[in-house]
C-alpha cells in the first residue's frame, strides 16, 4: 500500500553555530495517525517541532505536504498550510478569555471590529467537539487549572481546520487526571482525521495513544517502533544502547 503521507520530511538538518541540533532526520506522518517523537534531552525533538511549525528554517532537507514540496518560513505560513502547534511553554495569555486565546493572531472581524459573538460560537463548538471541561468561552485563562489550560492550547490548534497538529510536551507538569484528559483529547484529534505529532518524555503517555513511535538520538533517527513495542526496546534506543540504521522509508528498521 503506498499512501502519500500527510507530512514527509527527508534529511532535515539544523545547526546552531557549531552545535548540530538535528542532522538528516526523516519523518512521515499520515492522516488519522498519532506519531510520537521521543528522545533524551537535547535529542532534537523540539528543534524538529519548531522546523515543522515554521519557527525555525532547516539548513537542508525536503519537506512535503501531501507529496508537494513546501517551504515553511514562518508560523503564519505553517498555519496557512494547515499545521498547528502547541508549544511547550503554552503560548497562552492569562489575561485574556478562552475565546480570545483561541483566536489570538487570527481574529474574526466584521466591518473592522472584533466579532466576539461569532468567535465565541466557534469556540463553544470546538470545546464541544473535544468534549473538554472548560466552563465557558468567556472564562479568563488565569482562573483555569493547568489541565484546562492545556485543553485550551489544544483547542486553539483546531481554529482554521488544520490537518496536522504538533504537540510539544503536552502532559509535562500535569496531574494524573489532567494527563488522562489531555490524552483523550489527542485521541479525539486523531478521530477527527488529523495527523498528530506528539513530543514527550513520558513513555506511558506515548505508548497509550501513539500509533508509531520515532526515536531521536543526538539529532538523528534512532529507530521506529509500533505501539506494541516493548518499553525496554524503546528505552534502549533512546539511551543509545542499541543503534539503528536510518530506516528505510517504509517498514520497520532492524537493529544493527
Amino acid at each position, binding site marked *: 500500500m503506498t499512501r502519500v503521507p500527510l507530512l514527509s520530511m527527508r534529511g532535515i538538518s539544523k545547526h546552531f553555530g557549531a552545535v548540530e541540533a538535528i542532522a538528516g532526520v526523516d519523518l512521515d506522518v499520515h492522516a488519522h495517525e498519532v506519531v510520537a517523537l521521543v528522545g533524551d534531552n537535547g535529542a532534537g525533538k523540539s528543534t524538529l517541532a519548531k522546523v515543522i511549525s515554521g*519557527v525555525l528554517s532547516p539548513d537542508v532537507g525536503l519537506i512535503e505536504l501531501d507529496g508537494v514540496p513546501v517551504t515553511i518560513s514562518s*508560523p*503564519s505560513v505553517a*498555519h496557512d498550510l494547515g499545521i498547528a502547534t502547541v*508549544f511547550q*511553554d*503554552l*503560548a*497562552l*495569555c*492569562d*489575561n*485574556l478569555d478562552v475565546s*480570545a486565546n483561541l483566536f*489570538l*493572531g*487570527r*481574529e474574526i*472581524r466584521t466591518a*473592522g*471590529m*472584533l466579532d466576539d*459573538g461569532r468567535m*465565541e460560537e466557534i469556540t463553544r463548538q470546538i470545546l464541544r467537539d473535544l468534549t473538554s471541561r472548560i*466552563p*465557558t*468561552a*468567556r472564562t479568563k485563562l*488565569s*482562573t483555569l*487549572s493547568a489541565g484546562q489550560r492545556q485543553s485550551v492550547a489544544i483547542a486553539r490548534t483546531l481554529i482554521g481546520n488544520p490537518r496536522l497538529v504538533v504537540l510539544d510536551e503536552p502532559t509535562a507538569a500535569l496531574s494524573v487526571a489532567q494527563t488522562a484528559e489531555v490524552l483523550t483529547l489527542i485521541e479525539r484529534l486523531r478521530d477527527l482525521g488529523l495527523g498528530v505529532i506528539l513530543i514527550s518524555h513520558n513513555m506511558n503517555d506515548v505508548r497509550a495513544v501513539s500509533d508509531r513511535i520515532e526515536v531521536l538520538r543526538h539529532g538523528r533517527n534512532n529507530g521506529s517502533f509500533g505501539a506494541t513495542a516493548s518499553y525496554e526496546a524503546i528505552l534502549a534506543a533512546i539511551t543509545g544502547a542499541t543503534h539503528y540504521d536510518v530506516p528505510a522509508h517504509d517498514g520497520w528498521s532492524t537493529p544493527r
Partner: protein
Amino acid sequence: MTAVAGLQELFTRNLRQSGIYIAFVAIVGLFAILTNGMLLSPGNMTNIVLQYSYILILAIGMVIVIIGGHIDLSVGSVVALTGAVSAVVVIRAGQPWWVGILAALAVGLLVGAWQGFWVAYVGIPAFIVTLAGMLLFRGLTLQVLNNVSLSPFPPEYQRVAGGFLNGFLGGQGIDVFTLVIAAIAVVGYAVSQLRSRRGRIKYRQTVETMPLFVLRLVLVGAVVMAFAYQLARSRGLPIVLIILGVLVIAYTIVTTKTVFGRHVYAIGGNLSAAQLSGVKVKRINFWIFVNMGFLAAVAGVVYSSRSNGAQPAAGNMFELDAIAACFIGGASTTGGVGRVTGAMVGGLIMGVMSNGMQLMGVDQSVQQVIKGLVLLLAVAFDIFNKRRVGASR
C-alpha cells in the same frame, strides 16, 4: 453556577473593578463635606474639568502603553514641545489657529514614531527610550522657544480649552443644550450596558440581578445628570469635555473591539505567546507609541490653549500624573490589565483630591505627600488582590 449574582457576591468578586468607583464616590463625598460643598459647586466642577482634561487625555494614551507592558516618561516634555511648536506657528509666524493645531499634532506623531522605532524595532526598553525622550524633547522645546515664553494665542485658539458651547437651545440660566447632550450620553450608556448584559446572559455568564442592574444604571444616570446640571448652571458645556468624551469613547472601542486593542492586551499579558500566535509585536508596539505621541500632542494643544501660551517648563511632571491615574485606575504594573474608563476614574480621583485640598488651603507639600501615598496604596491593593486570586486557585 447560578446565572444571577447577588449584591454581596458581586461586591466581593468584582472588588477590584468596582473598587475604584466606590473609592471615587467616597473621595468625592469626603471632600464635598470637608469643603462644605464647595467642591460640587457649578463653578468648581467646571474648573475641575478644565484643569485636569489634559492629564485625562494623556492617561488614555498612557493606559494603552501600560497595558502593552511599557511606560512613557516623556509625555510631559512632548506636551511642552507640541505646545511650543503650535505657539511658534500661530503667535510668531502669524498662521491661523488651526494650522498651529495641525503642526502640533504632526510633531506629536513624529515624536511617537521616533520613540516607537527605538522601542519596537531596535528593542530598547521603553523606560530608557522615553527617559531619553524626556530630556530630548524638553531640550528641543527650549530650542524652539529660544528659552522664552510665547503668548498670547488668538481667541479662537483659546476656545479649545477655555470655550463653552452654550445657549444653542436657550434656557433660563440653565443651558438646555448641555442637559440634552448629557441625556443622550446616559441613554447611550444604558443601551450599551443592556446589550452587554443580554450578551452575558446568552453565554450563561453571571450577571447582577435585574433590580441591582437598574439601580446601577439609575445611579450612573443620576450622577451624570447632576454633573451636567451643575455645568449647565455655570458656563455650559466645555469644548474640552466634548473632545475628552469623544476620545474616551473612541479609545474604549479601540481597546475592546479592535484587533489592535486585543493584541495590545496579548503583548502585555504574554509576549512570547503573542509572538508565537502570529501577533505582529513590533508593529503593535510601534503604533502604541505613535498613538501616545498623538494624544500627547492633543494634550499639548489643550494645555497651551488653557495657559494661553507656551512656556519652556510646560508639562513638567505630567507623565507622573498620567501614570498615577492609570495605576489608581486598576492597570497592572506587569502589563496586560487596565481599562480606559479605569484610567479616567483614576485621573479624576487625583484631580478631585488635588482640587479639594486646594480649596481647603492644604499646603502644597502635604498635597504631594497624600497623593504619593494614594498611588502607593492603589498599587498595593492591586498586588494584594493578585495574591488573593493566586492563592485561591
